[in-house]
Each structure stands twice: as structure tokens, then as C-alpha cells.
């Protein structure tokens, strides 16, 4: 009842806190340094956030479905290495679908373990983080992967091309965000993801195939990872085995910042995009202020804690917790 009756500014702030924070933050940086909202700068930020963002879209499905995915970082390294390797062997037109198939096979494997075998997703994806890293190293023999003829291929289009002045990574991120947002909010599948994450047992008792829905969320996640790997590979045209290392936690940070509950059943694609952009613009804003890249770590830390804290406080009605 409390949420419904709480109207006016306070209620709005409590519900849309993340948007308000984003706006305040953008205005503050823009006032401090007008270059911050320069269109080139804005494009630059979104472009560099696109890889993280695309992965976060998929993880949003997994998290709303009530699970975690810590394997996306090493899975992204895997897809990048694979597509670069296959590029020179079978050409880009075949390399890309092959890479998607291989990455999504990994996603399907995780989906079977978590969905059908009902294993704890934190541990499964932790194990897969390690296992896929090992797989990547075995595949590449531990060596960096490079495209031999960087000029003679159209492969660079995904990472470096642009349409009507808008960089391709941004277009791909935006298109995927729109499609997945519609899937999540408008289709029966999306509804079932919320149901399974909200209460898996009750969803089963309503005839929702819990295992299949969870399985599908991991498939969506791995599809997004493959897309991110494609952008990464195409942008750099060469890669190390560890290119995605640590990204899983940054991705999770963006999703949580967007307000998806780790318990499942809550969150939206739109909010995740906001979370991704906040992380991106913080980094950029701090760089423009002349701070080193690592200053963003500390700021991100504070913002995540504040965002989640305020969210909890809004639901509880008190800022200070009394856990005995």
C-alpha cells in the first residue's frame, strides 16, 4: 500500500531515483566542463560503453530470471579469440556465425546446468568463468590472436564503421536494447522471465516451464556476449586471451546500478541501459576532469552502494537499517 499512496516529489524520487541521479550527475559535469556534453564526446562515451552495455543487456535477463552470470567476461574473451582465429581460416562470413554458434553452445551448457539440473548459478558460472578461460587458452595455445590482413577485410565494420555518422557499436547496442526491451516487456516469454525470477515455485505451479525459461535467459545472455565479442574483435582486429577479464563484475555492477534486484523478478532493459551509461559517463567525466582512469573505480563503488542503499531505504521507509 505504501508505494501506491506515496505520491508527489518524494515518491517520484524514490521510484525514479536512478534517473534523477543520472540527470543531476550529467548537469553537474556539464556545468563543470561544457565539453562533456559535446556530441562527439557523448558518442565517444556510448561507443566505448557499447561492449559492456551489450553484455549487460543479456545479463539483465539472467538476473531478472533470478540467477547470476559471472562467466560473461571470459566467454567474451573466448568469442573474440575464436572469431579472430576463424576469420583468417574460413573468412568472416563463415567465422561470425560459427563463433555465435560456439558461444551460444557454452550458454546452452550453463543453461542446462542452472535450468534443468537446478545447480546454483553463482557457483556454476564461477566455475565456467575459470573453465572457459582455460578453454580459450587451450584454443589459442596462450598466444595473442591477430587478423593477418587488416586492410583487406570488411570485418572492421562492426567495431569501426558508422551509418549516417553514428558509429556501428552504438547502433548495434541501441538496436539490441530496443529488441530485447520489447521481448522482456511485451512478449509472453518476458512475462515468464519475471514470473520465474519472482517466485520460481509459484511459476511452476502456474504451468510456466521454469527450467526452459532459465535456459533461454542464458541463451539470450550468450547471444549478447557473442555480439560484444564481435564488436570487440572488429574494433581491435587482434586480441589477448584476457580481453574480457573482470568485465563480468562491471557488467553486474551496471545491472545492479540500473536497479535489477539480485533476488530476481525486478528490473528493466531501460534501467540497465541507464546503469551502463552512468558508468560510462562517470569514467569519461572524471577523465575530462584530469583524473586517472582508476578514480572511476572509487566513484563507481560509492555510487553503487548509494543507489542500492537508497532503493532499499525507499522500500523500507528508513535510511538507517537496524539489523539488531
Amino acid at each position, binding site marked *: 500500500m505504501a508505494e501506491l499512496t506515496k505520491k508527489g516529489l518524494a515518491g517520484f524520487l524514490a521510484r525514479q531515483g536512478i534517473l534523477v541521479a543520472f540527470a543531476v550527475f550529467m548537469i553537474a559535469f556539464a556545468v563543470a566542463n561544457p565539453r562533456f556534453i559535446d556530441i562527439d564526446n557523448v558518442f565517444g562515451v556510448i561507443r566505448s560503453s557499447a561492449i559492456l552495455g551489450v553484455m549487460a543487456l543479456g545479463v539483465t535477463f539472467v538476473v531478472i530470471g533470478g540467477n547470476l552470470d559471472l562467466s560473461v567476461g571470459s566467454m567474451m574473451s573466448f568469442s573474440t579469440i575464436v572469431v579472430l582465429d576463424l576469420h583468417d581460416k574460413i573468412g568472416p562470413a563463415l567465422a561470425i556465425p560459427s563463433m555465435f554458434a560456439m558461444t551460444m553452445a557454452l550458454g546452452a551448457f550453463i543453461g542446462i546446468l542452472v535450468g534443468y539440473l537446478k545447480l546454483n548459478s553463482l*557457483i556454476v558460472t564461477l566455475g565456467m568463468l575459470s573453465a572457459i578461460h582455460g578453454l580459450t587458452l587451450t584454443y589459442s595455445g596462450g598466444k595473442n590472436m591477430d587478423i593477418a590482413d587488416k586492410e583487406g577485410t570488411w570485418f572492421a565494420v562492426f567495431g569501426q564503421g558508422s551509418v549516417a555518422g553514428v558509429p556501428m557499436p552504438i547502433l548495434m547496442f541501441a538496436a539490441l536494447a530496443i529488441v530485447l526491451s520489447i521481448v522482456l516487456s511485451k512478449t509472453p516469454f518476458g512475462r515468464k522471465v519475471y514470473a520465474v525470477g519472482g517466485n520460481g515455485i509459484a511459476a511452476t505451479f502456474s504451468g510456466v516451464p521454469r527450467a526452459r525459461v532459465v535456459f533461454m535467459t542464458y541463451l539470450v545472455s550468450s547471444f549478447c556476449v557473442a555480439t560484444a565479442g564481435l564488436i570487440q574483435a572488429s574494433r581491435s582486429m587482434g586480441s589477448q586471451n584476457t580481453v574480457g577479464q573482470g568485465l563480468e563484475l562491471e557488467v553486474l555492477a551496471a545491472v545492479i546500478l540500473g536497479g535489477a534486484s539480485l533476488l530476481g523478478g525486478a528490473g528493466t532493459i531501460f534501467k540497465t541501459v541507464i546503469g551502463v551509461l552512468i558508468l560510462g559517463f562517470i569514467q569519461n567525466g572524471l577523465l575530462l576532469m584530469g583524473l*586517472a582512469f582508476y578514480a572511476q573505480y572509487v566513484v*563507481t563503488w560509492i555510487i553503487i552502494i548509494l543507489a542500492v542503499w537508497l532503493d532499499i531505504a525507499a522500500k523500507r521507509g528508513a535510511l538507517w537499517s537496524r539489523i*539488531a
Partner: protein
Amino acid sequence: MKNETRVNLIKQGAIWAFIVVELIFFSVAGEFLSVSDKAFMNFDNMLLLLKQSAPIGIIALGMTIVMINGNIDLSVGATFALAAIVLLDSMTWPFMEALGNWAIPLAWFFALTTGVVLGAINGLIVWKTGVDAFIVTLGSMLGFRGLVFMYNGEQPTSHLNWTLVDFAEAQFLGLHTATWFLLGAALLLWLLMTKTVHGRNAYAIGNNRDAAVNAGIRVGPHFLWNFMLIGFLAALSAVVFYSESGSVNPNDGMLYELWAITAVVLGGTKLSGGYGSIVSTLGGVIAIQLLRKGLGHIGADTETVNLVIGLILIAVLFLDRQLNRKGKEELRT
């Protein structure tokens, strides 16, 4: 009832049985595949193994307590790095240099205090904001790492003190200094968890937090103590390791949290809290290190270690689930 006791026995014995299997497998396979002539079960080799287990092991002991408590700490790797920097850097401060070798205990003190303070920050946030420990420590993993970089930029921090190196490389009764620290910490924490009110309350809180709150256990401060403890242990791990190596990169300790959690889960501690043991975690730590060394011994690429450990972790989870199933009578949910 009999069945339950049996399941419990299997659970507690499983990790040690696994270690025995590993030993046998690598000894036998080593005969055929080994690149070196030395036997795997060589005494020095085993001593070295224990020493190499120490850095992750000491952290994993702390992780066990935090996880029994029903929390998790993802920031230990960053804490480890920051404590290491404080240790090495503090010895170069002018007043410390003036102290000669007396600077060593002081530097240790600074490093350990750093760990305790970082742990206290986590604990306080978990207590006072009520935000889940997973999120809090996920944030501070980034934040603490930021502090590491801020301390010395992207440069490595180095300082070799030969007295310290001698100490760290010393062997007493055959065991290395690091091993003694690992075993000492394990003993103390085992006593803490099995014999003291604090330890028993940790189980109670992780097992049923509402019940603990209703029974008047002060859950928040209890969390705070345990986060300080794991912070201390992460720093202790850094102190033991960097006393010998003398140089720390700002990226050191990354993914240590994942290794530590892997060891704890292999040891059978429940993710949801309330169940687990220090001794089993020690087993988990040794099992992982055996695997690393063993795979090297039979000539497998170092890359495969990650693959094998990841799959074993999942297999353990699967077996645990099979053991706990109620067979055909279970609901198909």
C-alpha cells in the same frame, strides 16, 4: 536418520578422499607422462605445495567464516593488494628506515591494520545500510582496487628487505614460514568456529538469520567482526607472500576472491550459510593446489588447470545436489 549421518560423513570425508585420489592419480600417471624424473609424492614437493597453498589458503579460511555467516566477500583480492603495497611502501618511509629491522614488525602492523580497516568498511556498510554483502563487496572490490591504483599509479611498488626475505624463506621443523602461518591461522579459526560463542553464533546467523535476531544475537556487529577478520586474513596473506617477493603490481590479487570461493565450496561450505568447516576448506585449498601441481607434473599445459578446476567445481555442485535429493519422491519443480 542413519542415512543422514551417512550423507554427512560422505560430505565431510569427500574432500580428503578426493585429495587421496589426486595423489594416486598423479603419482601413477606421472610414471608414464611426467616430464621430470622426480616422483610426484616427493617430500620436498609436498612441502612446497603447502607453502604455495598459503596465500589463497589464508584468505579462504576467512571466506569460510564469512560464508558460514551467510555473506560473501568479493573484495579480498583488492584488500590483499592494498595491504601488500602498504607493507612494502611503509618500509621506505624515512622514519621507518631509521628504525632498521624494527621497521619490519611496524610495517606488518601497518599492513594488517589496513586489512582490518578495509574489512571494517565492508562490515559497517553491510550492517548500517542493510545492502546485501554480495553487492557491497562487489562495489568495494572496484573501490579498493581504485585505492590501490591511487596509491602508486600503475607502477609496481617494490622493496626488498633481506632480513624479511630470510624470515619468509626459513623452514622450521621442515615447514616453511608461510605454511606455519596457514596452519596456525587454520588452528585458531577452527577453535573460534567450534569452541566459542562467536563461532556458534556465526553458524546460527547463517543458518537462520531471523531466528538469530529474535534470539537477541546482534547480527550487525557480528557481521562487522567477521568482515574485519577476513580483511585481517587477506592482509596476513599479503604480508606472508610479499615479505618474500618484495614487489607488488597494482593488478596483483585479482580473481583471488574467486579462487578462495572455489576452495571453500570444494570444502563443502554451503553458499546459503550455516554449514561448513575450516578443516574442509583447508582440504579444498590443498586439493586445488595439488591439481595445479599435478597437471604440471604430468605435462599438461598450465591452461588446462583453469578448465579442470572449473569443471570440478561444477561436478562437486552436481554431486552435492544428488546426495541431497530425496529421490523419486521429490517434486518436479
